């Protein structure tokens, strides 16, 4: 028995509904937290921070957000890029308008603003369902991008329409702008990820989460047993957009430092985050992390192997890379349609039975 669950008995309901009911998991989780917060910052360098860690952390936040909408509430959205843009432009405006306020709050407020915009675009979800809704959210995507590109107020009338993040500090340490240290940006994003994951987990294990899931699984039945579909769907849009807005804010201010809306928050971003959510596992917070890790790490890994180790021409490698990513997506889905998180779960179930089959 590698993996023990037997012998873990709960004596209270509180204990029973905790996030990691199994002791082994709980230890692993705490271990991961310690490593992430207390060990990684000492070893992280620019390359790991900018090429891997930051994109992973930020995409994970966005994926958690989208997962709430798609995975928990069943409303497929392709407007993620647009909502991230809202977060980015909101922080930009806030950063330049209120330079004295701590960037931490700017990011949070940007999330709040995105939540409002998200709710607005969530209104049609009351009538429109399934893929129709997915395509309809593209309207948000294209419209928002167009808007930020078109209205000079959003980019403070700069000549090219790009926005770039000025330097801001948190307790004296710069987290945006050119003079940041890898560990500082990493920790800043990590805090947001940890917070997002915790909030998402809390929301989804309680009444709100059940409302969302009820709507997802069968919206009519949910309404008949007493779920107000309007409120449930809009709250999902709001919470989801809140996280996505935060991700957009960090993406712009901490990670890239300068963005052009069409390029950074285009439709590809919407798809990318959706892939993360599905590959990771719909309706699993852990899945969002796994999905983000998978889609951020895999290309880097492939590139480094194909070009760095095997010395292939970069274009061949790039073509192969995208083929391999595509093929892996398919292979994973065929192996386990419910994503990496489910794959992990089944592995655990098997481990639990090990060495006896069944």
């Amino acid at each position, binding site marked *: 028995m590698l993996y023990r669950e037997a012998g873990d008995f709960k004596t209270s309901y509180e204990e029973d509904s905790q996030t990691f009911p199994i002791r082994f998991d709980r230890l692993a989780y705490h271990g991961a937290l310690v490593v992430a917060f207390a060990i990684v910052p000492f070893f992280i360098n620019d390359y790991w921070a900018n090429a891997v860690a930051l994109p992973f952390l930020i995409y994970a936040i966005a994926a958690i957000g989208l997962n709430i909408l798609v995975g928990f509430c069943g409303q497929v959205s392709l407007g993620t890029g647009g909502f991230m843009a809202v977060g980015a432009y909101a922080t930009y405006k806030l950063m330049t308008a209120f330079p004295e306020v701590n960037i931490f709050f700017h990011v949070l407020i940007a999330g709040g603003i995105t939540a409002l915009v998200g709710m607005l675009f969530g209104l049609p979800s009351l009538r429109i369902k399934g893929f129709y809704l997915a395509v309809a959210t593209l309207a948000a995507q294209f419209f928002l991008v167009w808007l930020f590109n078109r209205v000079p107020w959003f980019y403070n009338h700069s000549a090219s329409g790009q926005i770039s993040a000025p330097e801001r500090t948190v307790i004296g340490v710069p987290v945006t702008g050119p003079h940041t240290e890898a560990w500082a940006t990493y920790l800043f994003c990590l805090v947001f990820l940890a917070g997002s994951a915790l909030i998402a987990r809390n929301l989804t294990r309680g009444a709100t989460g059940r409302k969302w899931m009820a709507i997802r699984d069968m919206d009519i039945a949910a309404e008949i047993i007493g779920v107000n579909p309007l409120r449930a769907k809009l709250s999902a849009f709001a919470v989801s957009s809140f996280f996505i807005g935060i991700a957009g804010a960090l993406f712009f201010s901490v990670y890239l430092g300068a963005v052009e809306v069409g390029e950074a928050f285009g439709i590809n971003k919407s798809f990318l985050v959706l892939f993360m959510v599905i590959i990771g596992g719909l309706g699993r917070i852990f899945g969002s992390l796994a999905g983000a890790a998978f889609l951020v790490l895999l290309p880097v890994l492939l590139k480094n192997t194909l070009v760095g180790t095997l010395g292939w021409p970069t274009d061949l490698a790039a073509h192969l890379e995208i083929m391999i990513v595509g093929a892996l997506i398919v292979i994973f889905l065929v192996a386990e349609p419910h994503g990496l998180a489910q794959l992990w779960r*089944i592995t655990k*179930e*098997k481990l639990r*039975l090990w060495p006896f089959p*069944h």
Partner: protein
Amino acid sequence: MLDAGKAQDNLLEVNNIEVIYNHVILVLKGVSLSVPKGGITALLGGNGAGKTTTLKAISNLLHSERGEVTKGSVLYHGKTVQHRDPASLVKAGVIQVMEGRHCFEHLTVEENLLTGSYTRAASRAEIEQDLELVYSYFPRLKLRRKSQAGYTSGGEQQMIAIGRALMSRPETILLDEPSMGLAPQLVEEIFTIVKNLNEEEGTTFLLAEQNTNVALRYAHYGYILESGRIVMDGPAAELRENPDVKEFYLGMSDEGRKSFRDVRSYRRRKRWLS
């Protein structure tokens, strides 16, 4: 367990199969049964005993539920069928009526019935004729023939599912809970249809049924399944007389039928195996 003497005219044979869902959930733990040609065989058992799973294992619909037959074999006409896809099995004459209705929601009632004749190379007139036959069994369907199946009542959908299977003129029908949700007189009618088809056209039936009472009245032979194992089998008439069957499946005690109001005392049920 099996009556060896009958083995040669068995149309369908299930040998000691084991079924696992999702690679981890073991549901059937070695089920064997045989269905003689031209017979009506009943598969009985409580909720979750594995009746549906057994039928799906035979018709190869398990794949689409991420289930797998890991052991044993299923023979139809003496040939294994595990590697054939469900469609080719239908062509070979085995059709399953799925539990829980499964109509094509967006198709009209009539279109639903017509899909049943998909595999047949029959003429238009023949199909027309069969359609009329089904309508004569279920006049209710004729009334609703142009409405979308998704909007018909539960019982109507059940009729559609059965009618659809009849439209393919199969050699063997696997019926999963045909009586579910049907009005009492219709239940009798359905079983009468089963009996007629069996007697007049020689259609073979394997039916999973909760309504043990009716099932045992019409079936020739019965198997009782519990927790993924066959716990008892025998000619239907014998099963009907078995005291355990009587008590647990027919709801009869020595004093005759009990009232549902009288069973309120808590009582642990005896199981053959658990």
